């Protein structure tokens, strides 16, 4: 979109905000609508929103009185995208402990193992975090808050849940339990990954009452036993961070034994067990950029992981390694690279929409453009999986969100030409000190 068109759109959006009335009534006309649902992709289609909910998707819809109309000029429209498994709102600055709330280490001098599955990171979620708008203006509408493992805790990180990045303080959907396995977590299990199964089996014995609450060996609190019980026997989703094929094989056996609904995060070597994962209907959140043997758990890493898993019938979504919170917007690039490495384009989009929504039990809240769904929408300048495309406008519950963040504020402050001091120009810190354009 050229700048003029963007300005026109911005002006239309602003006038909508100014009107105030029926702000959640909206007709987006003439879009290439990627519904990510049963309707697939519709060219030159309209999306009608009333009361913040999508009512109709199709050609030639008419706007009810008072509804804002936006001409998409044929550009792509998608649901807001999944931001991955992140600590958005759980951290501000990764390197500053006082700003990070995503893991629990109660153990003495952080050396002792403490097992607290009842730990719930969503209680720390700060919807006013600067990370929220930074991700949102890039079309990221929701994310899974993750509970990380750390020394002084255990291989059980605790619980997280999906949050929508609309300022709502509360999560949607059911809680999710996080577990880490393999070499990265071996320091939490006496330096052997074998002990990870020993610990998990012991925890299940505690939940089942085979180890009494007062036994010396008991690791769980009463709340921990209740929490863990809710993830057994076909209960809540357990997201397991694991890479090595051998560990994934053990995980599949364990989860079948205890009827645990798992998903895999990472899964660098998951492609080696693609048929088994497909048969067990295990969703995998992969990092399509991970193609190096980062450690001996990931020797089989390949950029074709996503494509191979999908070809075998595994539901594939995405998750970043490294700082996926500040860089949540990078998840589109992950999907695009997966497509470049053989994943069908529609599945690249599904990995950012329907697959994680269904895997996390929020399919009725997020991930599709369909009648009855929340109107969480993104209008793009081009192919939403392309690095050359940007989000032009994001709507949540049918409301156009201001396309501003702390980063756009910084950008605009320094984009302007400064009036020199000798001409009376004030420093940029003053609102009117840098008004020359």
């Amino acid at each position, binding site marked *: 979109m050229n700048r003029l068109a963007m300005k026109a759109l911005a002006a239309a959006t602003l006038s909508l905000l100014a009107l105030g009335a029926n702000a959640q009534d909206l007709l987006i006309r003439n879009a290439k609508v990627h519904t990510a649902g049963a309707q697939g992709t519709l060219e030159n289609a309209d999306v009608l929103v009333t009361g913040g909910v999508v009512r109709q998707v199709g050609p030639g819809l008419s706007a009810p009185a008072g509804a804002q109309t936006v001409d998409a000029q044929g550009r792509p429209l998608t649901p807001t995208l999944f931001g991955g498994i992140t600590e958005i709102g759980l951290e501000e600055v990764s390197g500053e402990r006082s700003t990070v709330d995503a893991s629990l280490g109660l153990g003495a001098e952080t050396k002792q193992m403490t097992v607290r599955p009842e730990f719930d990171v969503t209680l720390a979620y700060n919807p006013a975090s600067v990370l929220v708008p930074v991700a949102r203006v890039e079309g990221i509408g929701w994310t899974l808050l993750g509970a990380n493992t750390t020394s002084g805790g255990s291989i059980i990180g605790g619980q997280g849940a999906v949050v929508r990045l609309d300022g709502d303080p509360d999560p949607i959907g059911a809680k999710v339990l996080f577990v880490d396995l393999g070499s990265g977590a071996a320091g939490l299990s006496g330096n052997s990954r074998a002990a990870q199964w020993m610990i998990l089996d012991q925890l299940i014995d505690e939940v089942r009452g085979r180890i009494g609450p007062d036994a010396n060996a008991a690791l769980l609190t009463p709340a921990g036993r209740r929490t863990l019980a809710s993830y057994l026997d076909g209960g809540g989703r357990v997201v397991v961070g694991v890479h090595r094929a051998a560990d994934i094989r053990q995980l599949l056996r364990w989860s079948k034994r205890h009827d645990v609904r798992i998903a895999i995060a990472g899964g660098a070597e998951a492609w080696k067990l693609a048929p088994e994962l497909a048969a067990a209907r295990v969703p995998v959140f992969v990092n399509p950029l991970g*193609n190096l043997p980062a450690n001996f758990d990931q*020797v089989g890493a*390949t950029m074709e992981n996503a494509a191979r898993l999908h070809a075998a019938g595994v539901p594939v979504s995405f998750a970043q390694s490294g700082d996926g919170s500040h860089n949540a917007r990078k998840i589109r690039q992950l999907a695009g690279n997966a497509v470049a490495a053989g994943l069908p384009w529609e599945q690249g989009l599904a990995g950012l929409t329907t697959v994680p929504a269904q895997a996390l039990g929020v399919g009725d809240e997020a991930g599709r453009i369909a009648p009855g769904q929340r109107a969480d929408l993104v209008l793009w300048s081009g192919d939403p999986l*392309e690095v050359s495309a940007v989000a032009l406008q994001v709507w949540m519950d049918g409301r156009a969100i201001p396309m501003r963040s702390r*980063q756009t504020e910084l950008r605009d402050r320094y*984009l302007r030409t400064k009036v020199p001091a000798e001409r009376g120009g004030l420093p940029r810190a003053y609102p009117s000190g840098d008004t020359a354009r």
Partner: protein
Amino acid sequence: MAPHFPGIHTMLRPHSAALATALAAALACTAAGASEAPSRFVADPYPSTYQAIAAGPVLLTNATVLTGTGERLDGADVLMEGGRIAAVGRGLQAPAGATRVDGTGKWVTPGLIDVHSHLGVYASPGMHAHSDGNEATAPVTAAVWAEHSVWPQDPGFAAALAGGVTSLQILPGSANLVGGRGVTLKNVPAATYQGMKFPGAPWGLKMACGENPKRVYGQKGGPSTRMGNVAGYRAAFIDAAEYLDKNTPKSTPRKRRWWQGEDAADSDADTGGKRDLKLDTLAGAINGDILVHIHCYRADEMATMLDLADEFGFKVAAFHHGVEAYKLADRLAEVGVCGALWADWWGFKMEAFDGIQENIALVDRPDGSCAIVHSDSDEGIQRLNQEAAKVMASAGRAGMQIAPERAIRWVTANPARSMGILDETGTLEAGKMADVVLWNGNPFSVYAQAEQVYVDGARLYDRNDRSRQPVSDFMLGQGATDAAGMSGGVR
């Protein structure tokens, strides 16, 4: 800019390939060795053994060519001969025996260059035993050379080659105020780093501002503050200035007489006693023989470092990471200092909190600017083109339209300039090393892939030819190939 070796195209054409190679090598020597004897501070007891792989002439035809000089040529050809770029233009004639590669619908760029890599010094797999990038034993370790840590079997080199990277600077980490010397490599598989060492490229000197040194040394005798950091740099350069003075001839003749040898100014009588490896490096930096690369995030600290450079008479080649470089973009351009930056990393520590996606575009904006996309990452180095594309997209949203022929300089000519190798590579100009990438489309796309990568005219990577895909020793026999013939690893 003008081609570095005018006339080489016509000079080379009548000769045999072997002679052409020899000529090119001789020219490379001249360029690299310069006309004066090197200062003792930059004598090299660990010299390059890099040898270009002989290859016949190659003509890439009818492609969209981004030259790296700011030009875009549609429907153009690139001729490589004798390891050098022989010609770039439309309707070139292929010499006898040349391999013709149809570039219709494809794009050709110079080989990409990463000014900030830790491949080999923080190699994959990321074992403790591979942690060779930070000599975190003292805040000033100018004596160490990153090249002595480089493990040439790091599988990351081949992955970067598949991403179109043909040259890269390997730097020490940022734990120290002065981390040591960086080395520039040609991205070719070799059993030794000397076999990769870019012939004649100057060393870099890695320095670091801000949080990292004070965090690492805060409980280890300091520095523990930013003011301590600056005192540390100053103390080191005061020592270096004294050393330089002692090692500079006291009675340098105003004019060299014909009977005086070229190295007269560097004779034993003029040396200041026992050599000091640390001060050799710092003195080389003051002399301008070693190019200064400074890890520095905040705008205020970059300004302090520019003053430090003036105080001790050295030049800063580039600020690396500079997430706040956009706050002093004009000054960087004025003083001719490059900004080697990420497209969008931010927030992982306090000094990275003000990162914006338009940083590179704003640094690129003034006349005389030198914006660089760098990686500092074994993942990012594989897709420098995508990082540049993200900057272009963000810039466009903010009203700054940046054309591909300009943006390609961020990953080719500009890093080459900051590394002192622009005379040899970084653009597609006759006479330069034939470091060339053939892309399957516009490289500023997430779907773009490097189809062929040439280093000194040799096809060292080909996406469609398994026999031209290098595999590190480390990847052999790792069970990365399953029964169905599907392999993991860096493919």
